[in-house]
């Protein structure tokens, strides 16, 4: 009687894609090892029964050597072996390395069914696998699938019940590799293929000189592309919609509203020159939707489009190799670029992704640096929107300040924290070009996640601001922090409210700065401080869960110190 089904396999063999196919639960899948850092669960209807399916993080072996692997292995032992079925997912293009885990699973007495995934790609690469032969040798069901297109999944579901423990002698590590060599010889046939363009590109991207040139090109193009799509959506779509359609509608509806009391203030906000100004009015129906849908969402779409594309192609691990030297100086290794890039979208998944790093020390450094120096898309979009009109120089300036901060802080943390950071050891996936439907689905999933999480908080934030401002409740807090903000940072005392709201959401906070009529210098300092000081509440909660109380307090003290020093320094250094 099967009570649970586990999906287990080496990193980056497409477990999450198979999981989505089996359960209909959408999870993020990418072309790099370690995409799945959280355990996903879903259900599969099997013979009229609803059975739980668990997607385990990738592992090379049952003798776990990292924390993600430990989690996978301990979960596997939660139930009796006769109550579970284990679907071992293998990469058909790299059968040899994948068989190690398969042998260990069989030897361990688990009821295993082998799923040879990516069979189409194996075909393209001239890898022919004799499925029947493999079944004969291993004595377990073997099914060939292509999870991206769905081929073979039906057969896999039909045969899950055939999974049963078979006896196999326990081998030592060396014997096992020899055994694998024998299996490969019998069941796999390689056709010789000439170097394809893809393989040449794969090579070029990891060589010292050509790799760096390519990386510079990719980063530049990615940045340009994000701006191009984001601005395109704003200029061609959202701005016309808000200004030509939504604004006249709102004005018509509120035209007869003579007494501009509390409710008017709450819903519409202040009129600028007798008209609604989406950037400055600060009402629940004006600025709140405009910030989220008119300024931030276009960039969320463009950023995640470009990031998802890079993820699925498999470029990110190559970038990790090239950046290993630099990140080593910060007490991290190359793979830390993955959490940093995810953090550029939203700090929450960025901090979760620090689980790909092995030691607690690395995870502390990476999480703290992400909180301080990596601005999320909503914040960046607002920086573009507000600071951009004074010239690109200032926008680039914010990035330069944040980047220098990461370098300086990382170097210091690496020096003062005890312990050392482990070395880089990573498998580099081949380039893959997934169908656009897969990319579109992932993009939609991420955008949906953003809208669901952001919109309520933004509305709440704008509501809170209006209530607090209307009843002058901010005055007390403003009074306390005014000397610091005014004297040290050179900002007007109303900016205190904006900085405080930054704890709720960064985009709303920048939105609050808009009506204050700040000078370029003040705006520059304020947005930089918003990036550096406290992370937003969502990030803070994840940080707490991931690091524990002690480290969160350390990280928070660091953020406050850095903000004060940075704000003061910028105020002194920038002359106008």
């Amino acid at each position, binding site marked *: 009687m099967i009570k649970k089904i586990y999906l287990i396999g080496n990193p980056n063999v497409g477990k999450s894609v198979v999981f989505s196919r089996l359960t209909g639960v959408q999870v993020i899948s990418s072309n790099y090892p370690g995409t799945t850092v959280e355990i996903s669960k879903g259900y599969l209807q099997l013979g009229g029964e609803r059975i739980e399916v668990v997607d385990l993080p990738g592992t090379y072996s049952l003798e776990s050597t990292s924390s993600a692997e430990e989690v996978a292995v301990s979960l596997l032992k939660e139930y009796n072996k006769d109550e579970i079925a284990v679907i071992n997912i293998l990469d058909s293009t790299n059968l040899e390395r994948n068989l190690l885990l398969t042998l260990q699973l069989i030897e361990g007495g688990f009821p295993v069914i082998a799923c040879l995934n990516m069979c189409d790609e194996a075909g393209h690469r001239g890898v022919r696998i004799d499925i029947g032969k493999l079944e004969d040798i291993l004595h377990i069901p073997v099914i060939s699938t292509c999870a991206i297109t769905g081929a073979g999944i039906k057969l896999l579901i039909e045969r899950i019940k055939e999974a049963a423990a078979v006896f196999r002698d326990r081998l030592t*590590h060396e014997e096992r590799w020899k055994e694998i060599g024998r299996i490969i010889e019998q069941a796999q046939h390689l056709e010789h293929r000439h170097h394809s363009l893809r393989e040449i590109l794969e090579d070029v991207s990891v*060589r*010292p000189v050509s790799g760096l040139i390519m990386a510079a090109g990719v980063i530049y193009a990615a940045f340009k592309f994000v701006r191009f799509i984001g601005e395109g959506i704003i200029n061609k779509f959202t701005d016309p919609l808000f200004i030509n359609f939504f604004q006249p509608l709102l004005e018509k509806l509120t035209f007869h509203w003579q007494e501009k009391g509390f409710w008017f203030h709450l819903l519409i906000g202040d009129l600028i020159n007798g008209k609604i100004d989406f950037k400055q009015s600060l009402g629940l129906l004006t600025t709140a939707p405009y910030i989220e849908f008119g300024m931030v969402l276009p960039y969320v779409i463009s950023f995640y489009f470009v990031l998802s594309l890079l993820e699925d192609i498999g470029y990110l691990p190559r970038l*990790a190799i090239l950046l*290993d030297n630099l990140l080593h100086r910060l007490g991290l290794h*190359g793979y830390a670029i993955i959490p940093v890039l995810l953090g550029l979208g939203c700090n929450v998944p960025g901090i979760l992704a620090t689980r790909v790093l092995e030691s607690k020390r690395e995870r502390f450094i990476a999480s703290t640096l992400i909180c301080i120096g990596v601005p999320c898309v909503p914040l960046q979009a607002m920086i573009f929107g507000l600071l951009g009109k004074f010239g690109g120089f200032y926008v680039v300036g914010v990035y330069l300040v944040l980047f220098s901060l990461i370098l300086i802080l990382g170097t210091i943390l690496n020096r003062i924290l005890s312990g050392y950071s482990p070395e880089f*050891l990573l*498998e580099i996936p*081949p380039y893959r070009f997934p169908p656009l439907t897969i990319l579109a689905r992932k993009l939609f999933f991420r955008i949906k996640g953003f809208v669901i999480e952001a919109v309520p908080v933004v509305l709440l934030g704008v509501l809170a601001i209006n209530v607090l401002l209307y009843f002058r409740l901010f005055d007390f807090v403003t009074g306390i922090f005014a000397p610091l903000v005014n004297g040290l940072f050179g900002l007007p005392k109303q900016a205190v409210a904006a900085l405080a709201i930054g704890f709720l959401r960064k985009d709303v906070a920048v939105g609050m700065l808009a009506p204050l009529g700040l000078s370029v210098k003040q705006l520059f300092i304020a947005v930089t401080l918003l990036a550096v000081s406290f992370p937003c509440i969502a990030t803070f909660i994840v940080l707490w869960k991931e690091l524990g109380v002690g480290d969160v307090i350390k990280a928070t003290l660091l953020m406050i110190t850095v903000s004060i020093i940075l704000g003061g320094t910028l105020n002194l250094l920038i002359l106008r």
Partner: protein
Amino acid sequence: MKKISLAQIKMNRKAKVIEILGGHNLQNRLMNMGVHKGRELLKLSHIGLRGPVVIKVGRSILALGHGVATKIIIEAE
């Protein structure tokens, strides 16, 4: 034939693993990824002087930190 570390040979050279120095954990991790005694590999790239090393083992491409590369003792062809 001489025995040197993976960090010391040039790019595009083939080599055979003789010994893996370092702790049990590192040996296991490498073993699980297919790098073990007697295994042939190709050094694809080496970034900078003390940077990571990229190798091809079987059908996988692996990136190793410089420190790991110095612990893999090989016999170069």
